[in-house]
């Protein structure tokens, strides 16, 4: 164990592990496979980074999101680990070949499941010893989870072909049924696998649901909240347009606000993340695209301006608050139209049986069709027959609708019901009984909410690590900042 702590200090500069990390790493180093369910904010990435750095063997990390992969590669590079790369569709074919032909040059290869399923990629990896095979966001493998990704279904077969020395399945939110599904689909037998499951409960985050009369009132309440809450805040939206409108309104109030959504180009995304991380932006108005891979310790509140589509999504989002284990708040502003809209969204985007048959009979006739239904079918195209896809999609649709209904119940349950208990019951295999008190959760009208937050034990603001720099600088000033030694023209 001392060796582990010494390695943690050497590679990361930390003196202690966060809960769960040490058990996962020890399990891996003793030769076991591990299923790790650790709450958001507990440093899941470190559980594969440290063993890889210690053993020097190749680690493949299967990751569902391009942006997340690139963030993780950047994070490693900033630590000084240069032998990390993301192998995905963003790279030209020639670049992909350059990676695959020289696997010995890399220590971490992040790869999308779709890319890993390609025969040329599999063949290249099959001839190279793999120390650790990591499935990040492993809940995506389960059709019982709302984030099911068909390409993850191939991972069991891929693991059999590649024969990695150890397998690590990582997730923050997996109900017991999903955990069983992960183990079964990845071929993780009880004899060789250690399951490390920590409660999803984050006691330092106060949960609040605040009923709102209309959208206008929501904005008014948000403005007031941002005056009361000190420090960094993430506001989540389910529509890019609304996020843009609210960000513009907050900017007009002279709040240092950023707008984040999936369509941002990589440079702008990185810039916004950095500015938020260093305190140059206090409030981020974002869609769900924001957050994965963002490790900012002192986010004091996560506010949902619109409800997320599942309880798992809600947990992921609120888990970005209070990673320093100091008091933080998760506030949901729920208007009368929000729940019906969320339930309607869960119904949308699934193709009919007829469309599935037509698409599979001749996909080429849909080559220019970018509707949600066709985009979804394209994902499934290479993994199963039309009949199987129809069954899978029916199951996925039913799962999404059930997840949305669970989310709706969370928001609409009587005020006396403890929300934290609902979360623990939904995700923990052996749910504890939550001690419900004023620091746990509440359903409050806006005036009560303002009162509660005014008395909230907010920690002292940590000093911003960077001076406030205006975003747009003159050519001369910017050049001087880039190259301080450049003589004045």
């Amino acid at each position, binding site marked *: 164990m001392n060796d582990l702590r010494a390695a943690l200090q050497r590679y990361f500069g930390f003196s202690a592990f966060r809960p769960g990390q040490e058990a996962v790493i020890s399990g891996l180093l003793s030769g076991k496979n591990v299923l790790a369910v650790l709450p958001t904010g507990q440093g899941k990435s470190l559980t594969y980074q440290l063993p890889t750095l210690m053993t020097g063997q190749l680690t493949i990390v299967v990751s569902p999101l391009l942006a997340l992969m690139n963030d993780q590669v950047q994070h490693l590079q900033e630590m000084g680990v240069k032998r990390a790369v993301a192998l995905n569709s963003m790279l*030209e074919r020639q670049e992909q070949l350059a990676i695959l032909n020289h696997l010995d040059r890399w220590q971490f290869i992040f790869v999308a499941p779709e890319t890993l399923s390609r025969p040329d990629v599999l063949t290249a990896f099959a001839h190279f010893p793999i120390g650790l095979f990591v499935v990040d966001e492993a809940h995506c493998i389960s059709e019982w989870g709302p984030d099911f990704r068909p390409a993850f279904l191939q991972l069991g077969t891929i693991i059999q072909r590649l024969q990695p020395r150890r397998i690590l399945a990582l997730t923050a939110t997996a109900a017991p049924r999903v955990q069983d599904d992960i183990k079964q689909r990845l071929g993780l037998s009880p004899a060789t696998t250690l399951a490390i499951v920590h409660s999803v409960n984050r006691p330092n985050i106060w949960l609040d649901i605040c009923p709102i009369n209309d959208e206008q009132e929501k904005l008014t309440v948000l403005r007031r909240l941002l005056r009361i809450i000190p420090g960094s805040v993430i506001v989540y939206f389910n529509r890019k347009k609304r996020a843009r409108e609210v960000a513009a309104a907050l900017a007009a109030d002279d709040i240092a606000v950023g707008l984040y959504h999936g369509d941002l180009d990589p440079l702008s995304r990185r*810039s916004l993340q950095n500015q938020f991380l260093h305190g140059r932006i206090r409030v981020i108005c974002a869609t769900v695209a924001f957050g994965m891979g963002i490790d900012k310790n002192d986010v004091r509140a996560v506010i949902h301006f619109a409800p997320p589509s599942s309880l798992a999504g809600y947990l992921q989002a609120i888990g970005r608050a209070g990673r320093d284990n100091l008091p933080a708040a998760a506030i949901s502003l729920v208007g009368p139209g929000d729940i019906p809209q969320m339930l309607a969204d869960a119904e949308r985007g699934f193709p009919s049986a007829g469309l599935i048959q037509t698409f599979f009979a001749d996909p080429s006739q849909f080559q220019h069709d970018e509707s949600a239904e066709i985009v979804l079918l394209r994902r499934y195209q290479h993994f199963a027959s039309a009949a199987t896809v129809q069954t899978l999609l029916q199951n996925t649709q039913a799962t999404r609708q059930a997840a949305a209904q669970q989310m709706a119940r969370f928001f609409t349950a009587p005020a006396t019901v403890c929300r934290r208990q609902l979360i623990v019951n939904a995700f923990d295999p052996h749910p504890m009984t939550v001690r419900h008190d004023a620091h746990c959760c509440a359903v409050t009208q806006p005036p009560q909410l303002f009162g509660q937050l005014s008395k909230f034990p907010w920690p002292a603001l940590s000093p911003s690590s960077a001076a406030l720099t205006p975003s747009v600088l003159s050519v001369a000033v910017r050049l001087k900042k880039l190259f301080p030694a450049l003589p004045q023209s």
Partner: protein
Amino acid sequence: MPTFLVQLFQKRHVRPITMYHILRGKRTFSNLYAAFINDLLPYWGLLPHLERAAYEKEIQSLIRRNQLVADPDGYLTVTDTTEIDQSPMWWPRHVAGLVMPPYRESGDLLTLAVQLLSQLSQHDPHFAPVTPHILIQQRVKQWYRQVAQSHLAAVTAELADLLDQLPPIQALVVVNRFMGRNLDVASWDDLAKQCHLDPFIVQLMWVDGIAQLYTLCQQPQNQYWRPLFPPPTAAVTASAQTTMQLLPGRTIHQVAAKRRLAESTIREHILEAAMLGDQVLTETPEWGLAPVGCDHVQDFFRDRLSAIAARRMKEDIIDE
């Protein structure tokens, strides 16, 4: 984007799907010909990531608003009632489509080179390259080792000088999209606010600025930054060049047989060279074309060749 699209369609005769392919840079003979004849070649590949659904949505919106109208053959024209700024405040004038490396690649090369210089000149070896493209990373590393490392002051001074040659607003956009030690890029929205322009136009301005810097770097006095970029690309494909080398003294039929290609492909090569090559090409008897009126396919080729020659001669007169 809507204003830009209206300007592009103005006084041109292009189908919307062809315009889309031109902006994405999808190289087929018919797209090239449409771009040439409509004076759209400079905009070739200007928006390589333009999504078809987003483009079509804009086009439909412009048609609904009566700013564009489709004729019975599917060509789009600008309606008489559309108010068009005859001299828009800003327009890309340095993009050159086919003869430049892709703008994304040049932009990534320049941005990464600046990041590398900024970080290393401030003794910060641990940083994440701004681009995930490993071939770009390799090229920048090689350039740094061979050119920049031993002349850091001169390299940064040359960059400042290059930026000085850009129009001020464009230099502002380009330089604010550089990042370095403790310095992030400015967002397109913030730049748009600062420049009082639409974010889409600001992004076009960046592309045009990269094109202008690329052109400036090709001048012999800019010795440090020139090796960073790939050399200009030939507009005429290697295959068409081979055809044109074989053609003197041979008929089209003979060249096709020698190259094991269809005669129609050889005719397309000739038209490509006529549009994009150095010389204005006119028909010669050596090509062995059937007399006028005997073969409608060959007559069609002849008509296109004449149209290309007429257009090029008109350009030459304007240039003089």
